[in-house]
């Protein structure tokens, strides 16, 4: 069964997203909404990780043939200026999209397995991930015209 591979992918991705959100929060302290909301979103990712932990235990570690390349790196630094903000948010968007689609795949598996416990974890978490994506997208849409047309 390859579900553990995906559970592990999701667990790692939530951690990567949380760390990256915190990185952006720190790096863009002059944008108070980005600063504070990224912290809130990072805390949500922490909770998602915790929720997944018992599943990792129950389904076991993935085997050695784990497709490592599925893992992505988070943000190690942040950029500056309006364009930098836009690109950092876009990177977060990509990371959150990976988390989002992985939740969707886990949900498929949980339904196939008729695994109520796993399904309820998905239900608790995937809605928040969807909101994270919407927040990122709106903040980027707001920032983009100014950054792409006018910023020096």
């Amino acid at each position, binding site marked *: 069964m390859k579900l553990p591979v995906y559970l592990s992918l999701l667990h790692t991705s939530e951690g990567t997203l949380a760390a990256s959100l915190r990185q952006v929060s720190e790096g863009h302290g002059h944008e108070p909404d980005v600063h*504070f*909301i990224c912290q809130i979103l990072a805390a949500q990712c922490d909770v998602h990780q915790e929720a997944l932990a018992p599943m990792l235990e129950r389904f076991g570690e993935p085997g050695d043939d784990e497709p490592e390349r599925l893992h992505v790196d988070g943000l190690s630094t942040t950029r500056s*200026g309006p364009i930098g903000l836009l690109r950092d948010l876009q990177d977060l968007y990509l990371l959150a999209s990976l988390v989002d689609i992985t939740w969707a795949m886990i949900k498929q598996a949980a339904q196939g397995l008729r695994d109520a416990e796993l399904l309820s974890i998905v239900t608790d978490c995937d809605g928040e991930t969807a*909101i*994270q994506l*919407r927040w990122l997208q*709106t903040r980027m*849409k707001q920032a983009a015209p100014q950054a792409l*047309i006018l*910023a020096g």
Partner: protein
Amino acid sequence: MVDRIAEIWGTRTPYARDELWPTRVDQVLAEGVDESDVERWVQSACVLCSNGCGIDIAVKDGTMVGVRGRSLDIVNHGRLGPKGLFASWQGVSNEDRLTVPLVRENGVLVESDWETAMQRIVTRSRNLLDDKGPLSHGFYTSGQLFLEEYYAQAIVAKAGIGTPHMDGNTRLCTATAAAAMKESFGSDGQPGSYVDIDECDAMFLFGHNMAESQTVLWMRVLDRIAGPDKPRIVCVDPRFTEVARQAEVHLPVRPGTNLALMHGLVRELFINGWIDQEYIDQHTMNVEQLRATVEPWTPEAVAETCGVEADDVRRAAEIFGTSERVLSTVLQGFYQSSQATASSCAVNNLHLLRGLLGKPGCGILQMNGQPTAQNNRECGADGDLSGFRNWENPEHVQQLVDLWNVDASIIPHWAPPTHAMQIFRYVEQGSIEFLWISATNPAVSMPQLSRIRDILSVDSVFLVVQDLYLTETAQYADVVLPAAAWGEKTGTFTNVNRTVHLSEKAVEPPGEARSDFDTFLDYSRRMGFTRLDGTPLLDWTGPEDAFAAWKECTRGRPCDYTGITYDKLRGGSGVQWPCNEEHPDGTVRLYRDGVFPTNPGYCESYGHDLLTGAPVGPESYQAVNPAGRAIFKTAPYHPAHETPDDDYPFRYTTGRTVYHLHTRTKTGRSPQLNGAAPDAWVEISARDAEAYEVAEGDIVRVESRRGHLTAPVRVSGIRDGSIFAPFHYGYWDEGGVPGGNYRAANELTITEWDPVSKQPILKNAAVRITKIADGTAASPAPTTTASRPVSTAGRGRGVLPTVGGPAAQAKETIAPVAPAMVVAEEEHS
């Protein structure tokens, strides 16, 4: 005659539930002017708070010489508060007024003329539009102008220039009211009405110091309290306000914890079955989500987080849950604090759970701060689309395109409108290079003032300031335009409970001052903004043309003005919108049938996630289609982002005093009001005063991570661990800039805003205090209101009671006529 500085609310006229509030006509005339000297009384309404009291202006020899309340008006039944009595006319009839335009030459502002000033504005504006496009322009508007002026401004920005960078200072005062109503009910629009005070059994005031912010409304409450069947009052406020003194239950929550309290109250309704299941089933959605979110918030959990007694939470909930008719009001204690929109929506939720809406005595008043904030929101001078339209709905955008006859692509609808704090950020970053500020004073009213001063002085921005006086903000301008004031121009405006008033021109403006309306029209004409057919974008000749155009803009929208004309507003009382063929006399309260404007094709907003502000979006909204049902919106409680620690151990909150409005540009020029509250102070509790060894009048330095102020101490009834500072005091009467002595409350506040309403969080920061000198006299804080000294304070330093003396005498005439009735047939059928 009554000293209306000492007796803020005047003489009581008690009445019982379901009776009409008795009339009392309040009048003040300038010294030496007799009633028989008055040549004309000119109809208007007061613009010194959001209450919108009907007022007549006394005119003699071409100047304003006094005021009296309009006996027939449904809002005030003849009464006026201290600000209306003393500042409305003296605040504008003043030798400090700007009389000619000023332009900056070699770094200093010099007197100029309109041609030069407008030419400079238009040249810079045109060059920037050609070189960099519409996003180089920003507008920071007001809550003080007239409807016609906002509509002109909104059309110029949205259809002339095409910039989304437009917001009002209403962002600081009333954005959360609008946001909470959009989230819960689908659109802005006040559900309740002032007559609900006459008819209620219980009143909840959530972060609303009504006694000081809307004095005439509070008179109505006091008269009910003095009557035979007084309503039960519950007050949520960290200070021991006048409201708290009258309350059966006072919940002095820790600043920043409102949402936890609200979760506790909502939970009690569920637990005790104080809900109307039928109403919930038929008229609402998402109740299960609400139930789950509030579940952890037992009264004990609330007590722990908010610092109030668990039993008081139970008692308050019991009053809400068991009173037949409940009226709630909400203001800055909620709007300017953490999780503002979520906390304000929780008030809506309480009422929806019991179906206490749209019925006599059962209402919600999501209050406004400023007199014309409502019109700013309606017209879209806050960036929203005019007429409560939804920027995410292409049909709504098309309606405006048709109405204004402009190219569809010009109206900014590709992203949410840019809120005030973000506009200032773009100025800071240099991408907004043309900023036009009208009738507001961000150099004192915005958070973190040292930053705001830096932004206003960046080289890249061309700053236009339009005002009555050379304010702190005007000092930074490249061009200052002198504006005509209230009483010097004609227009309409709308108060908190949707009452539209006409304000007529009584006297000529001083010198070359012009109405903001004329200035916007002039700008539009000089810029050559046109419709698709080549005619001028704004082809109006006067405000009445603008009003006619506005009526068309509101046709079929929740704020329908189509049944109102200037003539209809002349002579009698104001009229409450919606007023149209169906409601020819206006509408007392909304949602009587439990049908809400949440239909996807009709709603003003698809809503947001209240924790993060992420929009719901058209697809998700249509998928769950509320179709006329109200929506229970909520979010988990989250602690404030800045909380006390070892370095900054106090919670800091800011607010008003009854004697001033905003940055005192008008009230500070009324001798009676200025005398009552002449200078800044800070409040501290008796326990903390003892711990820090400070006494009444001692000078302290209050400091946050962003700045500090120094002021004398008033030991007041504020809750332990909190420091209060009034936000009125800036620097215009101290040389214009802080000359080493900081006294503005916003030196300390944090740059942060609510994720949904984008309202700055001015009521929560962490600070520390240091005593810097022994006092020589009592602090200048008024003794008549929340800033009154606690009895144990003073310690040898005599605090004199606040009185107005001979200059503050007003005439009160009790019951000269029968009380005004709300005309709508629904109320008295």
